[in-house]
């Protein structure tokens, strides 16, 4: 019969009380162990967010730099948004697939523009969305909403090998199959989200505007937005035929001989063709700056929330630690008072002060260990709820409407709060439980050990 056995027997003596204390302590422990991983996850998530933003901005900058001589002429005002995707990638389309009536210009305009002084090359595109649409639900920090969007968008490109080699007119991230080549006809290069939507693979047949095309390659959209447009690239002549737009184009990428010619050419095009929306390197840089400002604002908001989170978390943890220690302290003080006569008897039987103290401290530690187990159990189930209840959430407002892909980033941040516990935290929590149990029991145990045996034996 050792001190430990006696301590365990004593703890199990008052089952209801022990259970209540363990549950109360368990909740405090659950709060203590749930919050730090939540903070870490928030920080990591903000870091990821910063990295994503920075990568996106630098790839945009890179793309813009590469296209210093490019003048984008589009029949739609939504076009021309700078993006890290190839210029033919309709990522610049209004988000969530909102459909605008397609406007086309005749190819005769191309010859007219080509005659403007300083124009080097013109790449023609024809972009058109499918008539059929799908309804899809988006979950975002601001709630769920349903959007209707086309099943696919086709992009017809002038498949000229000189253009393919010298300008970014086709996607580069080919995951299987091959890219489009000059003189390709009756074949398509499709985005991976379209193949998964349609359930087809390489060499599969896809029906576009009632005509069958063979899939020769699959590419990965450059950003991972959940509402990335599903695209099929094809030869522009195929696109014109199937959409009934023979001789029409919806976008022109005009390349100047040199960057110094860009301003003049853009002015002439804008003045001559009022139906064309012109975007130059300068416009794209301005857009990039606006985007940078928005990103910076979002990141600042996130950083400020993180700081607020840390401050709140510190307060919550201090309260939880204090509550845990006080619960142990009061329970053990009550126990010591209740068992005064027992302490007197033990001392009369020859127990030293240390023997008595160690028994009561062990009892406090056992209760705390049990609470630690309960805390971990509660924490592993309720950590997300506890953290979301106790910690402020990072706001992503202001970015969602601006560009596709931001919804995904926002979702990443809100998921950060649902961080779960890892074994390291659990082990740490156990150690902490023992420490708090020991700390909370020190004074009551010391008081027990200092009790006069004669006085204690008189206690009823």
């Amino acid at each position, binding site marked *: *019969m*050792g*001190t430990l056995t*006696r301590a365990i*027997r*004593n703890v199990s*003596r008052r089952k209801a009380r022990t259970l209540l204390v363990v549950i109360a302590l368990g909740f405090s422990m659950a709060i203590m162990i749930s919050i730090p991983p939540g903070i870490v996850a928030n920080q990591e998530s903000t870091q990821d967010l910063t990295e994503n933003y920075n990568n996106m901005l630098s790839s945009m900058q890179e793309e813009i730099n590469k296209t210093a001589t490019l003048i984008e002429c589009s029949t739609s005002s939504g076009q021309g948004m700078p993006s890290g995707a190839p210029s033919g990638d309709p990522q610049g389309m209004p988000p969530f697939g909102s459909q605008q009536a397609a406007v086309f210009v005749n190819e005769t305009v191309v010859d007219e523009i080509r005659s403007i002084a300083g124009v080097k090359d013109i790449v023609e595109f024809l972009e058109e969305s499918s008539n059929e649409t799908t309804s899809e639900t988006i979950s975002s920090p601001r709630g769920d909403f349903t959007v209707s969007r086309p099943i696919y968008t086709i992009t017809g490109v002038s498949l000229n090998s000189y253009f393919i080699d010298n300008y970014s007119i086709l996607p580069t991230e080919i995951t299987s199959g091959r890219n489009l080549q000059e003189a390709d006809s009756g074949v398509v290069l499709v985005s991976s989200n379209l193949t998964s939507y349609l359930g087809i693979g390489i060499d599969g047949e896809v029906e576009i505007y009632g005509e069958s095309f063979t899939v020769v390659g699959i590419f990965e959209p450059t950003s991972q937005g959940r509402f990335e447009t599903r695209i099929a690239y094809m030869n522009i002549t195929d696109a014109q035929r199937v959409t009934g737009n023979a001789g029409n184009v919806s976008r022109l990428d005009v390349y100047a001989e040199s960057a110094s010619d860009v301003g003049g050419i853009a002015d002439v095009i804008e003045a001559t063709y009022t139906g064309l929306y012109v975007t130059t390197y300068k416009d794209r840089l301005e857009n990039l700056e606006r985007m940078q400002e928005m990103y910076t604002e979002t990141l600042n908001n996130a950083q400020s929330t993180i700081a607020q989170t840390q401050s709140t978390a510190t307060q919550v943890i201090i309260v939880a630690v204090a509550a845990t220690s006080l619960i142990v302290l009061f329970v053990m003080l009550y126990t010591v008072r209740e068992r005064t*006569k*027992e302490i*007197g*008897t*033990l*001392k*009369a*039987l*020859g*127990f*030293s*002060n240390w*023997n008595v103290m160690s028994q009561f401290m062990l009892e406090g530690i056992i209760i705390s260990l049990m609470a630690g187990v309960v805390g971990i159990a509660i924490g592993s189930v309720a950590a997300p709820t506890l953290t979301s209840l106790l910690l402020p959430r990072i706001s992503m407002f202001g970015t969602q409407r601006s560009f596709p892909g931001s919804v995904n980033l926002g979702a990443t941040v809100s998921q950060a709060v649902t961080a779960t516990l890892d074994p390291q935290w659990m082990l740490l929590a156990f150690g902490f439980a023992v420490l708090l149990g020991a700390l909370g029991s020190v004074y009551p145990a010391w008081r027990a050990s200092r009790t*006069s*045996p*004669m006085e204690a*034996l008189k206690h009823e």
Partner: protein
Amino acid sequence: MSELILKTEELGKVFKMGGRTIRALSEVGLQIKKGDFISIMGPSGSGKTTLLNMLGCLDKPTKGKVVLDGKDVTKVSEKDLYKIRRHKVGFVFQTFNLMPYLNAIENVELPMESTKKSRDQKKQRARELLKLVGLSEREDHRPHRLSAGEQQRVAIARALANNPSIVLADEPTGNLDVKTKYEVIRLLGKLNADQGTTIIMVTHDSQIAAHAGRMLFLSDGKLLAKEKQGTHLAKDALKCPNCGRETQPEDTFCPRCGKKL
């Protein structure tokens, strides 16, 4: 002549309560020999328990000394007194004071916890003691499953665990019914007679006190000069002192001669 095991000299204890000074013990001189069975009698507040606490090293006197096994225990520091209590003294309390969460054998083992005995030796010793008090069959029973008399017998076995020099019993029969209290006093007498255990018992029950070998009287903290020889239950069995007929422990009058026992 028997060896002197416990001696007090001019023992005094003064308490201060609310500005008042209470003299609980005054000039108590005692000499207890090995194998004595002494009862100390006196009315409530006469200082019986205070004296027992001094003898058992639970409290320190304000004056005089207590010499136990040749050592003045009043000079031993507070933090070392537990060793004397563990090895030299066995306590029996009026309310038994068994640990409710331990069974009979574990309760008996309790004082041996910090001794050098092995686990088996402790168990063996506890078994022997339970057998001695007639509770071999009840060693796995927790206190709430034992009768009051059985609980006190376990407490007596516990008091003997470390083979102490003296056993101090504070009103050991105070919480027992008539039949059981005679069983207990008989057991104490038997231990004294058979094992040579030195017992000092405090009681206010004159009939119980009379079963000890020697009766001392305390009044207002002073040991009275009168001293009586007890009947010594174990030595003289339960015979009527007038006609010699055997009597039952609970008998107050002899069933044969009708005289008061």
